[in-house]
């Protein structure tokens, strides 16, 4: 439903020279400015939260923030996609191979329905799929010739300027809002993002209100109550999501 071209982890532009220089920080600023002017009966205070990619948008939107943005909660955020999420400690996270169409194709125009098509898995058994699939290069050639994220991942195997420019936490300086960083110890996407986000805010912004809370959860699982909270065979208790949200 939105216009524009999707970019994975939009690099932050520190010195914006024109209205063409836009990033998540400027888009968040512009959205807040418009909403405060056009939606009546708010109290002038704005917060932002989000889980996973929206966690990254919460971090990015809080840089050079609109003065009305008072509180920000990056939850399971991506901090630097070379070290977390699609990579784990710099190594491509092979388990996400199937999900690449979501992030490496369109949408190039507003849409109400899914813009991506996941390929039909020849077998539901991931181990068997990779064993039969040959090398990663062979798999990529077979499924993702037109996938721009696959192109980016394979053209930049090292921590070069392409990835460095996507490290949002290095721009998290001179921050003004208060921060509540939220994560789960069983997050496969993974712990680097949430811990690095908290650490970098703390290190580079003395005096800013910055707290972190971590619980026995998978990726974003605290946000939706699942009743009987389990990780595989480990049972942690009932109604933990609700309890966690309250604290």
């Amino acid at each position: 439903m939105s216009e524009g071209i999707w970019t994975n982890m939009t690099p932050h532009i520190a010195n914006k020279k024109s209205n063409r220089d836009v990033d998540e920080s400027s888009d968040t600023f512009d959205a807040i400015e418009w909403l405060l002017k056009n939606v009546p009966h708010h109290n002038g205070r704005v917060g932002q939260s989000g889980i996973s990619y929206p966690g990254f948008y919460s971090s990015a939107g809080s840089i050079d923030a609109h003065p009305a943005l008072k509180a920000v909660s990056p939850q399971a955020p991506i901090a630097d996609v070379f070290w977390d999420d699609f990579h784990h400690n710099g190594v491509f996270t092979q388990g996400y191979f199937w999900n690449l169409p979501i992030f490496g194709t369109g949408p190039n125009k507003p849409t109400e329905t899914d813009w991506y098509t996941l390929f039909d898995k020849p077998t539901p058994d991931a181990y068997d799929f990779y064993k039969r699939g040959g090398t990663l290069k062979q798999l990529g050639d077979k499924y993702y010739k037109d996938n721009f994220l696959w192109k980016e991942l394979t053209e930049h195997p090292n921590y070069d300027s392409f990835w460095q420019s996507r490290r949002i936490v290095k721009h998290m300086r001179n921050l003004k809002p208060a921060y509540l960083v939220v994560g789960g110890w069983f997050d496969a996407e993974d712990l680097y993002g949430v811990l690095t986000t908290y650490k970098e805010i703390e290190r580079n912004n003395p005096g800013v209100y910055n707290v972190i809370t971590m619980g026995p959860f998978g990726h974003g699982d605290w946000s939706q109550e699942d009743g009987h909270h389990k990780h595989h065979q480990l049972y942690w208790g009932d109604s933990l999501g609700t309890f966690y949200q309250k604290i």
Partner: protein
Amino acid sequence: MAMLIVRVDKKDKKMGFFNNMQDRPIQSSEWKTYSIEGKIDEEADSLFFGAICVNNGSFYFDDFILQIETGSGNWQTISLPNTDFEKNTLTDKLPENWKPFYNTSPKFGYSFTSTNTYKGSYSLKVTGKEIEDNAGMNTYLRLQSFVKNNYNKNEYQITMRDGIKIYTIVYTPKDASAINTYPMMLNRTPYSIAPYGKDKYNGFIGPSETMIKEKYFCTPVSGADI
């Protein structure tokens, strides 16, 4: 709770028309007629219709009808086998001529009843039991009805400084006024912020039930552009 579902798959393997009554799940225990109406995509390859059962309990279905509008106001009924469940036999544990949409859960059983029917001699009875993981769905429905009762929904296209328009939904507390103001919470996302449409309400409009109930302007913003 149950929903009817209609899905069109296109030749390019993308999904076309889709409706699963997410915004109006069936919770009544009376016999009622529910319908889903939509446009079959031009590149349609296949059309699925059926029902989703959620949680424990008994679910009764009868007399599914597929109609295609051939001319303005002219609805032609497509004849399909056993949509009225009059063949009261099971094949591979399912009613004849019906297939599982994804996987059928072993926690749901199928049988036929002649004591509670809408039409004809039999209706299909689906029984869900020993399902313990549906707290999420119950929370969603409880919140969806809270949101409908306590918030107004508006949709906007907000123009960024570079001219790009960003689609934004704002849920406003109904009792917001000049003297009763609320803060605003953004959730910016590259994913969908469905359901779309002024009258279609989401249940999880905020980070937690506590916050949704305390009320504030919930503002999901879609589309992260550069």
